[in-house]
Each structure stands twice: as C-alpha cells, then as structure tokens.
C-alpha cells in the first residue's frame, strides 16, 4: 500500500474490499491496521464502503463484532446454498443452520450485508430453486449475489461432467432458471443491477461497480489485480500469486508486483464493454467518453452495433449503451459479435 500510495497519493478512496481466499482467517487487528494505513495514505470518501468477505462458519461469525469494530461496514457472506446436501456437494464446511446463524448475526452487527447462493445445480428443479430463493429473500437485507453454477476446467467437477457423472442443466433449462430468478427478485424489490447481483435501489456494491464501470482500483495482496490510470495511460497490474513469494518480495523490494502492462486504447475499449454491459444500466456516455476518449458509436464497427441493436440485444440512447434482458442472458455471444 505504501508503494502504491507514492503513485496515487492524494486521491480519494470510495471503497475497500477484503476478499479472495479467506480473509476472515485474518486477525481483526490486522484488518484494523490495513484500514488505518489506507487512511494515512489517501482521503476516504464520506460514505466509504468497506466490505469484508466471510464464510458462515461459527468460527468466522464469532469474529464479526471485532471486524465491525475495525471499521468494516459491510459483510458479504458465502452462503452458497440453504440445503445441507447441496452444501456438501459444493464442498462447503458450513451447514444450513450455521449459515442462518451467521446471517442473523450479520444483520445485527453490520449496517449492510450481502450473501450469495449458487443455483442451476445438478438435479435442481425450478420448483426447488424457487423455494430456496424465496426463503433466502426472507433473510436478505438489501443485497444478494446469485450465481449459476459454473464448472471450471481443472476441477474434479469438470471431469465428472465430461464423463456424464454430473449432469448440469442445459442452456435451455439454465436460461429458464435465470429468468425465474430475475422475476422473483424483482417482485421482492431486489432487481438485478448486474448479471448475478441484486440490490434494493441504492444498496449496490459500490466497490464492484468500480470494476464494472472501468474505474481505478489498486490490487494489494498475493495474486491481486489492479487497474490504474496515471497521466492518461492505463495500467493493468498483477501481484505475485504465492503468499510466501509475495511477502518476501514486499519485504525486500517494497512491492509485490509481478506485472504491470499498459492497456492500449483498443483493449481499454474492450474492457469497458466487457465489464460495463454486465450492468443493467450499462455504460453511460459520460463514463465511456471519460475512460476511452471516444463516443460509443466511434468505438465499435457500425455494422456490428446495428445488427445487435436490431436484434434487440443492445440499446443505445442518450444515456448510454446497455444490454437488454435477452442480451444479458447471452452476453458472451453479444460481446463476441460486437468486438470480435
């Protein structure tokens, strides 16, 4: 942080996010020290959002109070499911009761909290998911992350799926589940503001919006990525991934940066679309111009854009550009058609 401060000192911080890995293993005193150090280097926005990612095990929940006292004002809990067999399938250490207990505690301790669920699980019917989601909405305050199960290469799930042991919903069923999710959340006052994120108006995660709108962020800690605009140039930064190496490098040379690449203007435009179109509100003309130096129309091939507008996958108006519901459901293909 000290290192990054030399380049960005004087700027205002709008959010801090303790996430990735298991930050709740960290001593709350360390959390407090990190926040204090940040405050020494940068000025904090009045409404600064400081989020902490935690698992709903009883050990982690026991630290909630201390974490709150360290300055954290929002907690994001990896609940993942409200069903014990699903939790064991997902390889989680907590069970349903612990999850509900953690949510209750978070509700009492933090001004804002969010939790996540994973759906479109193997054998999960639309009815079962509807029930689970309805129940989750009872515990939710003002923010929910709802992810469809993604099976990553290199995990045992990938092999199971390939060998037919694991059958995940096909695109048609996954699409139906996605649509049900949008509908239920909207009816309950938590519309999607991003592909997988739902919030009561005004309670969106400001930190993540910085990512999606292509704002600047410093990545501190092993493997963390950052985006920094310095004198008009945009840099993509990446920290050394292994904690030991990262730490020894920081101790020796004062920083843990592994790569620092210039993001050229073409890539910058791609990133703005890749991330911005995930948001329900899309990218505003002002933000786009501010971050790319171009009007939206001048940044893409007119033929490609027109085709997607005509296909009702995108909307372009005075506010900016955004994907329609049907466009968001097929965003990867839309992006490929727009930028490919």
């Amino acid at each position, binding site marked *: 942080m000290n290192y990054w401060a030399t380049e960005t000192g004087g700027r205002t911080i709008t959010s801090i996010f303790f996430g*990735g890995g298991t930050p709740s293993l960290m001593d709350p005193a360390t959390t407090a020290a990190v926040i204090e150090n940040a405050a020494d280097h940068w000025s904090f926005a009045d409404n600064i959002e400081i989020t902490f990612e935690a698992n709903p095990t009883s050990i982690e929940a026991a630290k909630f109070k201390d974490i709150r006292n360290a300055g954290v004002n929002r907690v994001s809990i990896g609940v993942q499911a409200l069903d014990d067999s699903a939790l064991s399938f997902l390889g989680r250490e907590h069970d349903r009761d612990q999850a509900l207990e953690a949510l209750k505690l978070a509700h009492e301790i933090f001004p804002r909290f969010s939790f996540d669920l994973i759906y479109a699980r193997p054998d999960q019917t639309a009815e079962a998911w509807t029930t689970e989601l309805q129940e989750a909405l009872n515990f939710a305050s003002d923010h929910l992350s709802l*992810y*469809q*199960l*993604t099976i990553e290469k290199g995990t045992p799930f990938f092999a199971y799926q390939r060998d037919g042991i694991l059958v995940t919903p096909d*695109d*048609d069923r*996954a*699409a139906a589940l*996605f649509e049900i999710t949008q509908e239920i959340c909207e009816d309950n006052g938590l519309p999607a503001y991003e*592909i*997988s994120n739902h919030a009561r108006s005004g309670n969106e995660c400001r930190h*993540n919006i*910085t*990512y999606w709108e292509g704002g600047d*962020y410093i*990545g501190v800690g092993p*493997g*963390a*990525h*950052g*985006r920094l605009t310095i004198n008009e140039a945009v840099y*993509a930064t*990446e920290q050394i991934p292994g904690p030991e190496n990262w730490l020894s490098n920081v101790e020796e040379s004062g920083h843990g940066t592994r790569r620092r690449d210039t993001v050229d203007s073409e*890539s910058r435009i*791609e*990133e703005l679309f*890749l*991330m911005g179109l*995930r948001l329900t509100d899309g990218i505003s003309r002002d933000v786009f111009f501010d971050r790319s130096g171009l009007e939206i129309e001048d940044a893409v091939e007119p033929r490609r854009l027109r*085709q*997607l507008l005509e*296909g009702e*996958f995108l909307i372009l108006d005075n506010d900016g550009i955004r994907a329609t519901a049907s466009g*968001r*459901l*097929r*965003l*990867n*293909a*839309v*992006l*490929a*058609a727009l*930028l*490919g």
Partner: protein
Amino acid sequence: MTELSHIRNFSIVAHIDHGKSTLADRLIQVCGGGSERELKEQMLDTMDIERERGITIKAQTVRLNYKAKDGETYQLNLMDTPGHVDFTYEVSRSLSACEGSLLVVDASQGVEAQTLANVYLALDADHEIIPVLNKIDLPAAEPERIRSQIEDVIGLDASEAIQVSAKTGVGIEDVLESLVQRLPAPSGEKDAPLKALLVDSWYDAYLGVIVLVRIKDGVLKRGMKVKFMATDAVHHIDSVGVFSPKRQNVDALYPGEIGFITASIKHVAETQVGDTIVEEKSTITEPLAGFQPSVPVVFCGLFPVDAADFEDLRDSLAKLRLNDSSFHYEAETSAALGFGFRCGFLGLLHLEIVQERLQREFDLDLITTAPSVIYRVHLKNGDVEEIHNPADWPDPTQIDRIEEPWIKATILVPDDFLGPVLALCQERRGEQIELTYAGSRAMAVYRLPLNEVVFDFYDRLKSVTRGYASFDYQLEDYREGELVKVTILVNSEPVDALSMIVHRTQSEYRGRGICTRLKDLVPRQLFKIPIQAAIGGKVIARETISAMRKDVTAKCYGGDVSRKRKLLEKQKEGKKRMRQFGSVEIPQSAFIEALRIGGE
C-alpha cells in the same frame, strides 16, 4: 538369350483375398527367386496400402527360372496385375504383355465380380486361361462345386483346374508345369528391327523413371539410342534389367522377354504407356497396337483441414502424380473450405487410395467434397459442356438437356442377401439386365447411373450384405437424365462446397440429409439460422437452428478483466476459421464435419 520356345509370359487374375499374392510368392519361392528370409508376405505388393488392402495398384513383374519335368529350364515372366475395376486400364495393358493367365478362385468362396471382369479382359487379350482352385486346405473348400461354378458363370472349361494351396505349397509344381505345357510361347524375331511395347513406367528416386517393356522383335541393349514413337523423344539407355524379384541388370532383353530400362528420364509423363520403342534410326513407321488412354471418371474437391497445409498438399499431389499419371488435379477455391484442389480419378477406389496416401505418406489431414461424375450438358444454344464440378453448372434456364454416364454393374451375392441388393439397385435407378443363380450365389447384372454409385453405394452394398457381396462395373454409355443442382443455403447464402448434382427424384432426400447434418453441427448463434436445400430458387428442404438461449459468465470481477479480454482475443483468433454467412459466422469445422459424415 532364352529361346522363344522356353519363355512363358503370364499374369494372374483373381478377386481380392483369393490368394493371388500368396500364390505369386510361392511361385517365386519354388523357383528360387526369394530366400525364406526375403520372402516377406506378398513380395510383389510394395506399397503399404497395397499390402494392407490386399490389392495391387501398379503392375509388377518378376522373372522366374523354372526347371521343368522335361529337364529343360524355362523363363517364366509373371506380370502381376491390379485386381480392381478402377484399374481396368492397368489390367489390360499388363495382360497385353502376356500370352496367358492363371485364373485363381478361392475354393471356398467361388467366383466374384472382379474375377469376372478381369477374366473377360484376359479373354479379350486372347489369353490361354488356366483355372486354379486355391485354398483347398480350408475345411470349407468345395473344389467340385466351384469348378462347376466357373463353368456355369464364366463359361470356361474347368475340367483341368489345378487344385492348390498357396499357403501350404500343395499343387505349386502342378501350376508351374501347366504354365510350361499349356501356355503358348511368345512369338518374335530376334534379327528383326527392335520393336518393344512400353507396358508401364514409374518413378524411382535414385534411377529416375523406370520403364517396363515387353520385347516384340529385335534386341534391346544397354548403350543403345532408342526412340519413343508417340513422343518422338530419343533416349540413351543407361541400364537394362529384370526383376527376380530384386532388380537385376542384364546385358540385353530378347524377343518375348519382359524387363525394364532406365534412360535418365525425369518425368513419368514423358513416357506414354502403350507406346512403341524402336531404335533411333529405325525405319519402322507402324507402331504396336497401344491402349486407350485412361481418363478420370470420378471427381471431387480435396481441401486441407488446416489451411496452412495447402502448399504441402500441392507438393504432395505433384509427388504422387510422378507415379500415377492417371489422376488429375487443378487448384480450386471454395468460400466454405478455402484453397484446395479439384481432382479427377479413375474410380472411387482410386480416389480412396490417393486420399489415403496423401494422409498417410504425406501426413495431411484432408476433406473431400461429394464425388461427382462427368455430365454432358446440352445448352439451348447448341453448345455441349462436360461438367464435373457443381460450381460450373450452368443456369438451369440455359440447359436444354443433360446426359449422365451409366455403367454395367455385376454383383455377386449369397442368395440370402439378394433381396436387399435388388432393392438397393432399384432405389438407385438401376435397370436389371440379368439375374442368374449358380449354387447358392446369385449374379445380378444391372445398368446403373454412375452418379448413384459414387454416392455411398459401396457402403450401402457392404452393409446390406454384411460384406458378402462383390461388385464390379464398367462404363457403358451416356443417357439423358433429369439432373439438378442442389444448393445448400446457410442463412440464405449458398455453401459452395456442399452443392451437388443429383437426379431430381433423389434431390429432396439428399438435400434433407445435409440440412439435418448441418443442423447438428452448426453451433447455435445469437440469431436463428435457416438451413435450406434448394434447386434454383425453389427450396426443397429446410431446417432451422434455433437461437442460442444462454451464454454468460456468472462471475466477473476486478481480477477477471484481463482473463476475459484474453478470452476475447482467442475468440477473434478462432474467427479466422469462421466463414461469414450474412450476419452469422459459421466455423469451417462444421462444413468439414458435414462432409466427413457424408463420406462415411
């Protein structure tokens, strides 16, 4: 030199797997031509593919010295001939260098279609034919039944058929003895001016072109200057020799003998098979009867699966052609498949062999378009065009009438399978000429349009008869037919590589087949994609690829941006292999797969 009376030139006529090569090996072995160690199975078939498929493609020759029961030593020249119909041309030129043939029939299987075709060619060449019943060691052998079958089906006297087992060696002496006693000796004049028949030629990496000759009159010696009458080219003979079966130089070749010459010839194309070779200053003006040149009858496009292999493909085709002047190729460009070649072949087997050699010997991954034949298109303005590429098909409004090649096909099949075979022939517009029974086998002779045969006929025949049918054909004539060009449209744009010329009655079935296949192969896109088969402007079959329902990454935060962008770059790279059809891009692999499945 060997006296003419002590020379016998013969070839072996047989169906695939009836033991021709094994018998040849035995004959060589008995005559001391190959030691046990050298006698790998089937010495004569030198190419891997020939050995694997049990067929001979290029003619091979071997000189044997046999000490007969009369105490005299005879020079026996064996010309091995290709066993397949596609190579009829090679068969007939090999046969023309000999005076007689051994007709080898498997004593358990009986006469097959190719046996028939080749035995008729031998009879055409005025051969004396000695029937040989092979594999009599097999428990299933029925020599008596097969003997009468030869008489019934071929109409040949088989009373003196020799019973052998090339595998165990039984009867081999009898075969050699009968060659001496029953075949006529060649004729020729040693003192007359040189006259030699150019039987075959092939390229050897060390010696250049090797020319196989049969001496009619005169003597051919090393150091002579000779003239090839057809091309008027003069060559200096570097070496003269025979195969025994190893290549072995000799001083001279005399009348009646078969051997080879080398003369620093660089290209096979410079040697015209069937040509007459005379001395440079010869006064001979009348050449020997030559052969009809072989012409390609089956055509298809050959494209590299990886566009980067195009140059390799070009080089490989050139190399193959060095030794196989019967196949033709020219560059072709396809919007769907990229750069490739339009190739012509003697038949389907020839096509398969060339394709397989390209893949195996040159390590190329290839895709072929639907095989086509030569159509004679009579235009309204009186012009007649010969067309084998659907891309060249004229506008239907300009066409007056179209003629297509027909063949006479002979199919031999066990009784039990006759029904499905007849049904298949009917379905392919066949006309029955003859249906006869010999024992438990039936012989069906049909007239069939060649274009119905080049489209999966072999495969269907094989599957409906569980591989028990044998099939042979010869081109007969051209007949008028109601042929149409079926175009496949993806997103309303034609895919050139999938166009085909078919009979109107088959058009819907074939068009629908490709549409259905493509439907499974083309990945879903943002937009619905219609896949249509059409004749001119009229759509005859249609499928629709429904639009993609969902494709979105669930989690994407600050740490994922770079990865997402790299993924996009990779997709862009992949687009180089995409073909644009209006608003949609279709991977080339979909077309390749469609053709692949179609060919199976």
